[in-house]
């Protein structure tokens, strides 16, 4: 028993599983107990389950689909923009532009939405571009870090094999780091997913999980709010799992 509390102790798979089960059961028990009285902060499991049922009947699946579609649209555009900027950042004259875009991640959401609203009239397009602008800054920051982490030896190796500078860029940075790009997307996904729900709740267009949260919030329906939080967390973790699985399956050499 003592070894369970010893730092850096190696445990068997079964023991690790038992520890996880212990914590899950503990959380569920605490939840039940803390929501039993008349006055409680969190809704009871029964209220959350009712919230789930209501949401499902109101088209939860369609809303999840809408959020996912928005997420994929924004991710694809942002990844393309960030990758182009990152790859071009190896050219000295472009480097300051890419660095500046990376720094823009400190800009507040409100200011950007104001200017985007002047240019874009359609709410759905607006949602996409708000996300694209913000995601691009975060993705570019991470991708610049990825390029900076490539060792000089890798560039020298390509050069010693008679690669010209463009071939070095293609072989070492572009082809040689595709798996890292997937990992960067995965790591930034939590921010994107969190922002997506916020953007959907601010700019109401085609429904989505953010829209549902806003509605539930308005009517102080705690059961629905927690049910939605669980759905959002579940979908986010599922996308995270899929990306990690894709990287490990398609890039055998990838040991990040």
């Amino acid at each position, binding site marked *: 028993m003592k070894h369970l509390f010893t730092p850096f102790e190696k445990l068997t798979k079964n023991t690790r599983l038992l520890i996880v089960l212990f914590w899950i059961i503990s959380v569920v028990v605490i939840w039940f107990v803390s929501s039993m009285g008349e006055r409680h902060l969190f809704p009871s499991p029964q209220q959350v389950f009712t919230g789930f049922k209501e949401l499902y009947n109101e088209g939860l699946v369609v809303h999840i689909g809408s959020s996912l579609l928005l997420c994929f649209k924004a991710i694809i555009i942002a990844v393309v923009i960030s990758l182009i900027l990152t790859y071009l950042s190896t050219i000295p004259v472009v480097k300051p532009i890419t660095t500046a875009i990376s720094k823009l991640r400190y800009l507040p959401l409100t200011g950007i939405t104001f200017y985007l609203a002047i240019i874009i009239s359609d709410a759905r397009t607006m949602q996409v571009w708000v996300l694209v602008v913000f995601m691009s800054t975060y993705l570019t920051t991470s991708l610049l870090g990825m390029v900076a982490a490539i060792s000089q030896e890798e560039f*020298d190796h390509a050069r010693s094999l008679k690669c010209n500078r463009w071939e070095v860029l293609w072989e070492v940075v572009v*082809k040689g780091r595709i798996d890292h790009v997937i990992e960067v997307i995965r790591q930034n996904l939590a921010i994107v997913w969190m922002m997506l729900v916020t953007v959907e709740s601010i700019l109401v267009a085609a429904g989505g999980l953010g829209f549902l949260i806003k509605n539930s919030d308005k009517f102080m329906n705690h059961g629905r709010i927690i049910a939605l939080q669980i759905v959002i967390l579940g979908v986010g973790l599922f996308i995270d799992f899929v990306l990690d699985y894709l990287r490990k399956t398609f890039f055998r050499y990838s040991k990040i």
Partner: protein
Amino acid sequence: MNYTIENTLLYVEDLSVAYGPKMVIKDVNFVEKDVLREGKVTGQVIAVVGRSGRGKSTLFRALTGLVKPTSGKVLIANTATGLDNDAKEVKEGDIGFVNQKYTLFRNKTVYQALMFALRNNQETKEQKHEQIMQYLKDWGLESVKDQYPNELSGGQRQRTAIIEQIFCSGHYMVLDEPFSGLDVGNIEAVKNAFDLITASHEFNTIIYSTHDIELAVELADSIYVIGYPTIDGKLQDYGTIVKHVDMKELELAWKDFGLDHIEVVKQIKAAMMAS
């Protein structure tokens, strides 16, 4: 042990490299010529030894054209013209370079990496395939041809890196500490690799660095000690060649390691300690 000296293969004149205000190597001069032995194809094996931080790696980066010299020049034989002593300034890719970490493309299998190294070769795809398979067999890499670098042992990575450079570069190859961290078996494998390379063409020239002075004396026919020179009684803080041992002149090259070799080891160690 009869041998003759022919065309100049490597000519380094007043080579200096500085990183910003820091002069790393200065006034490096040396010449290596083609060594001919009757009845035997003999490439050149040149060892560079010296204490850590004396500029061996910088010298190698300059020799391979990976860093531009601050001053001076590195010339290699232009074997493409067929003219005697025709020289050209070294460019990146002219001289193969295997670094200490045996870096390979992380996303290419051994076979893919070797095919890439042959990309500029005029042979057909089938001929390239046969060449690769022959090398993989000769170098004991057949069973790992479809594996990625992170699935290879240190020795396998090193052999792959050496074959890549044989395929891609001309007659010159620089190896930065090829014996570092290898076990006895892998050291023997690298020695065999040296034999394979030098026995395949007269012009083939291997330049390597090592901290194992016995190995340098055993394998090389020319040894350079790089260290800080003493000028007017004051130890300088840049690297240069402080001693050259021509094992051919001493009649110790291409011989089994013996008592005379031990004497050379002592001399080299003394030169290193003084620089």
